């Protein structure tokens, strides 16, 4: 009995050891599916290595826990920009050599091909996603909202609003809605007066707000008619509008966008393969492929050389991407430096404000 146990245990652990699968951890849902189809499966097919995708509701705390416990089972993780910086600061991530990333097809080095800020010490951008607001076109006869200010204008557009229950992106949106130019938002938020001003703007609609927490909620709130307009992640609204034919329209004015990053946790079991995977996934073609599955924009200029078409074969992606020139009119890039410094402080203030 004992011998059988030892033997099977040894065999099982041998089985695990021999199996050099690269494990990628992402957010699940439509997003995880896009990365599975665009990166995980093609890479496995092209290189002959195994690769599997695992889901998490937020990979950042998960990999931090793994590294701290000294039991890392994930090789590549998809994390928010601020987390890629924060976890890198905390020594949880492996540095990634930017020079090793593949050049664009025309020979432009990766460091110039990527948009500014899309490569950090420990992370490489997979896409740019955005906090936008959207409305149900059937709920408006005549004039429709077009600007960030309209979101806060209850007289012109009465009805409930959906807003994310958190300080990040909401405070910026409030200032943009108050007429602050995008370039001045973070300088203003760095002062007590700026924070007060953002909260004052939110106060003006507080009684009519339905707060959401999970990304799946805002399309649902719109579909149920609980709100006439709501902030949301642009990909979720795109999915509802294109895949499910919902009459939702995005207002890009006042969008707050940021990079999503691939990172490698320190002590990843297959570090070299993980780096190879990232080089493949963040190549010009890898980023293009992901944008064919979900409406988040590639962070490489060369990925836009030819028009990107959605997987349904007819929807041209460009107008649905946060980085399309016509959508960038009044847009703000999230400042990771600001939020790494002020996340805790402003979230406490936000929670206190909510419960007043």
């Amino acid at each position, binding site marked *: 009995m004992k011998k059988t146990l030892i033997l099977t245990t040894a065999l099982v652990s041998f089985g695990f050891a021999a199996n050099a699968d690269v494990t990628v951890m992402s957010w699940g849902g439509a997003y995880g599916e896009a990365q599975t189809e665009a990166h995980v499966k093609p890479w496995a097919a092209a290189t002959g290595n195994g690769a599997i995708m695992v889901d998490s509701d937020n990979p950042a705390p998960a990999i931090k826990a793994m590294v701290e416990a000294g039991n890392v089972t994930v090789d590549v993780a998809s994390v928010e920009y601020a987390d890629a910086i924060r976890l890198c600061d905390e020594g949880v991530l492996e540095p990634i050599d930017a020079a090793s990333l593949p050049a664009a097809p025309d020979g432009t080095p990766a460091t110039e091909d990527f948009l500014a800020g899309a490569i950090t010490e420990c992370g490489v951008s997979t896409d740019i996603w955005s906090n936008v607001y959207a409305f149900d076109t059937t709920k408006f006869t005549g004039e429709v909202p077009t600007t960030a200010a309209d979101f806060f204008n209850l007289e012109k557009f009465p009805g409930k609003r959906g807003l994310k229950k958190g300080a990040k992106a909401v405070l910026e949106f409030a200032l943009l809605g108050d007429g602050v130019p995008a370039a001045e938002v973070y300088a203003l938020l760095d002062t007590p007066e700026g924070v007060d001003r953002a909260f004052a703007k939110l106060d003006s609609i507080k009684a009519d707000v339905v707060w959401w927490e999970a990304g799946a909620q805002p399309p649902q709130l719109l579909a149920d008619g609980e709100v006439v307009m709501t902030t949301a992640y642009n990909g979720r609204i795109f999915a509802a509008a294109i895949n499910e034919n919902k009459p939702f329209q995005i207002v890009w004015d006042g969008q707050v966008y940021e990079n999503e990053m691939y990172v490698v946790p320190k002590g990843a079991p297959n570090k070299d393969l993980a780096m190879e995977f990232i080089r493949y996934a963040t190549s010009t073609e890898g980023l293009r492929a992901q944008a064919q599955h979900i409406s988040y924009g590639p962070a490489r200029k060369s990925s836009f050389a030819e028009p990107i078409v959605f997987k349904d074969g007819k929807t041209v992606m460009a107008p649905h991407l946060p980085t399309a020139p016509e959508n960038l009119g009044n847009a703000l890039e999230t400042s990771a430096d600001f939020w790494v410094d002020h996340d805790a402080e402003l979230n406490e203030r936000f929670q*206190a404000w909510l*419960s007043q």
Partner: protein
Amino acid sequence: MAEASPPLLTTADGRPLKEALATAQSRAKRRAFLLVLPLLLFVFLTFLVPIGYMLKRSFEHDGFAASAPAMVAWFEANPDFDPANPPEEAFAALVQDLAQMQATKNTGMAGTRINYSVPGSISLFKKGAREAAGLTPPYKEALIALDPDWAKPMLWRGMVSAADVYTAEFYLVASDRQLTDEGWARGEDNERIYLYLFFKTFLISGIITLVCLLLAFPIAHLLATLPMAKSSLLMIMVLLPFWTSLLVRTTSWIALLQEQGMVNDIFVGLGLVSEDGRLTMMYNMTGTVVTMTHVLLPFMVLPLYSVMKVIPPSYARAARSLGATSWTTFRRVYLPQTLPGIAAGSLLVFILAVGYYITPALVGGADGALISNMIAANMRNSNWSLAAAVAAMLLVAILVLYWLYDRLIGIDRLKLG
């Protein structure tokens, strides 16, 4: 009157019986212990070790202490310096540490640690470390010229506190205190949140426990007294939701109670409320209480049922035949016998409600957040020490309640089934 000692009993092979019995029993005990050993190990590894580790994090953090040796040494040598006006040597030690942090790439760790009490420190440290190697004496002027924030007394107080690996800082923050230029003080009114949320969590959990008890008591009584066929059907109706996923039940309540939901549609259809006057029953405290009551109801019904099932009906009949009214019978005879069930159910529901996370997050709206949501928020923001401190305070509060409960009702009267 000497007592005659009884003859020594022995086994067939002549050993004293007592000794043989002890040997046999200790062998049985050892075997029994070996049987529960896997469970003990499991509890130790998956329960006690993580909780201990978490508690340790709430008062231990070496992010700054490990990466700034010169500062730690200087603070130790000069415990009485004035944070409002630190001398040149302090700045020299700081510049030396910053330069070293840049070389060993742990600026982020040190900055993160200071940032917990002094917001804005991460970028300050990063900027300082980048420039440190090029700075020339006097360091005080050089560093302040780089960024005036280096002269802030609050920053120096934060660094003194962080130079010690062990700190009560996270507990101070979790009790709504804030580091200022003069030291730790009561936080700004518009940033105080933790104590309020503790209070609210316990209040809402209390309300939910009470509502659960009021709803569950008649159900459990019916379950215990109805004929078998009917009570099995009722039991299935209690258990079916219990077996359904928590998320499904929560979202069903959203579909029912939201402004465009079924309940409001029916009210409008019946003319009870006007189209514009639809009731707000979701995304607020009402939604939280209704949904959590429903989710937790079986935890009250089942202990009550198991206790009521074994109360002999003859007691109540005896009381009635001796002339008691039905109210007196209930109050003096039936209710006291159900107390162990009430106690067990209430304790179970209350403790589960205090730690609830996903339901308040989904249906709570603006004022529905509970303390567990703040723990989750701090985990997300990668401030695990603060999350651990809040969790530890919650744990202590529950243990105190448990102790009170034991003193008032007695834990041995608890009956779960």
